[in-house]
């Protein structure tokens, strides 16, 4: 890319060379993507849409009809959406104040909070799950502490949907805060100070300046978290109920335990299509940022 920009436009050859070099550089990842993701995904989609009728293959939606007619598949899909949206809402409720605090606060406490916020990045999912089982479970740490204070009606979220949400929120905090803080840092202090000079209050500054300027980081955090949560496996499998299941667990189950690879493929394609819609949102958000930056 650099060659492309710095080479003098006078020589057509060197421009060509730059372009070729750029393509050669992006070729390996592109090739990997095409070979390992796009082609298999396309094959899967085609396979789920074909049926074998007396040796002849024909087009059919029958696999999808079967999926959406099966109350268990549908309840798992609905359950996945519920978990994803609830988790996302809680992530933003938790992470917004944290990000704003980390953007504007300085000093030792802020540094400590910063480290705490990043801490989940270094904890593997499976360790987190067992820690949460010990912490949230019946007669776990939380239960014991509460009973010291006389609270005895504690009902554990372990093996219930709530535990999945707790685990996923905990896992998503560092990434979300990082993205939001990065977005907030792009808002210059002078902008806020000048608004304050003309008499804007904190709320007005947040609503009229900060919020519009961080829509993009919010969209990025939303879409990447959505993708991660929708396809999550370890947390829902270890902390969640046996039924309903999130799609990741359901797919593995159908493939490995029920030995029905065809149905697992249909579930995978449905998941893939949902996630690619959100992926598109992400790509558009990032692309519009690029275009805007180039215009500037």
């Amino acid at each position, binding site marked *: 890319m650099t060659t492309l920009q710095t080479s003098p436009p006078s020589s057509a050859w060197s421009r060509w060379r730059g372009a070729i070099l750029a393509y050669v550089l992006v070729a390996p990842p592109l090739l990997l993507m095409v070979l390992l993701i796009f082609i298999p995904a396309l094959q899967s989609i085609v396979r789920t849409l074909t049926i074998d009728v007396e040796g002849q293959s024909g087009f059919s939606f029958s696999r999808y009809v079967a999926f959406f007619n099966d*109350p268990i598949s549908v309840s798992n899909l609905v359950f996945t959406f519920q978990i994803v949206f609830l988790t996302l809402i809680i992530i933003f409720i938790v992470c917004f104040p944290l990000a704003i605090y980390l953007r504007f606060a300085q000093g030792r406490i802020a540094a400590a909070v910063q480290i705490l916020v990043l801490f989940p990045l270094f904890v593997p999912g499976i360790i987190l799950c067992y820690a949460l089982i010990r912490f949230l479970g*019946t*007669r776990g740490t939380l239960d014991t502490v509460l009973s010291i204070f006389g609270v005895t009606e504690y009902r554990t979220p372990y*093996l*219930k949907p709530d535990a999945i949400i707790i685990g996923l929120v905990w896992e998503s905090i560092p990434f979300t805060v990082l993205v939001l803080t990065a977005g907030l840092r792009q808002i210059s202090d002078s902008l806020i100070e000048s608004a304050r000079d003309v008499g804007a209050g904190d709320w007005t500054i947040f609503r009229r300046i900060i919020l519009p300027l961080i829509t993009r980081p919010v969209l990025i955090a939303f879409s990447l978290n959505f993708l991660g949560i929708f396809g999550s496996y370890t947390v829902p499998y*270890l902390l969640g*109920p046996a039924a309903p299941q999130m799609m990741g667990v359901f797919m593995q189950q159908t493939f490995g335990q*029920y030995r029905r690879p065809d149905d697992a493929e249909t579930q995978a394609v449905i998941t893939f299509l949902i996630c690619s819609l959100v992926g598109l949102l992400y790509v558009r958000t990032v692309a519009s940022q690029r275009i805007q930056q180039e215009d500037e």
Partner: protein
Amino acid sequence: MRNLRIVSICLLLLIVVGVSVAQEQRKEIYVYTDSDTNISDWWTNVIIPGFEAAHPEYDVVLTIVRGVGGGNADLAGRALAALETGDDPQVDYFETIGVDSVKEWVDAGLFLEITEENVPNIANVVEATNRLPQEIPYRGSQVLLAYDSEFVAEDEVPTTYAELIEWINAHPGEFVYNRPDRGGSGAAMVTRAIFEVTGQDPSLFVPGEFEAELVDQFPKAWELLGSIHESIYEEGSYPAGNTPVLELFANGSVHMITAWSDQALQAMNNGLLPETTKLTQLQDLPFTGGYAYSAIPSNAGNVEGALALANYVLSPEVQEAVVESIGGFPAISWEGLPAELQTQFSDVITETVPTWPGGDYGAAMVEGWYNNVATNIDPASD
């Protein structure tokens, strides 16, 4: 120049002959295992030192191939190739292997038949191990009930599956088993329900076969397990593994569980379970279990040593260690063990060890359980 070449070739031949002669007389016994750490540790720390003390003429070389390719099966493949070429397979003893899991092994007579002539102690092995002539069953494990005697009165302890179901419903939230695909202890609870509704005859389920008529009766098992769904821990919460179930029992969240004998005994020995923990087995038809079978390749370079080792692992000394060190079940009759050990485990001793065939039956079992018991969606509402 030419002379030199001839001399060097002769020397090389001599070395080769020398090495193979040395192998004929070698004293090493090459043992291979792909079992879990608790088993390989036990071999390293208990069995091998004990055997070498009893047989100073041998030197046991243990190689752990756990997680390496196909494990012991790969080495059996190597032994088969060596059998065809007449070479030393460099394997004398498989700690566990399914001798009939590959057709070629059986056809070629890869494994040595074990009789009272070559391994005298094989005579003490119990019927329940159901061994093939080439198999040396030497340790077992079975699912059983673990309960906390502080909360479960002695006269309340279920002795049949029907009583267990009754007990669970009478004590909501005090019993738990794991999802059947996430650990054998939960699977045993489910397969036992299937045995219950198909006439308590596990022999109906033949591995590798699939009788649709039997599977048609599974819904009765779902009904039975569905009847206790609400009474399971936290109104029907099923953990995802043997260990989480043991943990719920250990911290007192529940007072009765299904558990693997070896995992429960080991946890008890390590003081992880309540001191009042007791184990019991159903008397009408026990939960499923199984044995680990060793085998010796017929072309082993040190057959004599391997046979001596086989005889040693079946000695009362090692069989006692099976119970005490790894919490397993002995392969010989409990009567051959110290009286003290017998009384300690009198409640769990059983002569029958039913097995579940898995395969297509397993898939039908797991899917049926998830779709009918765990979801608790009324099938009529489909």
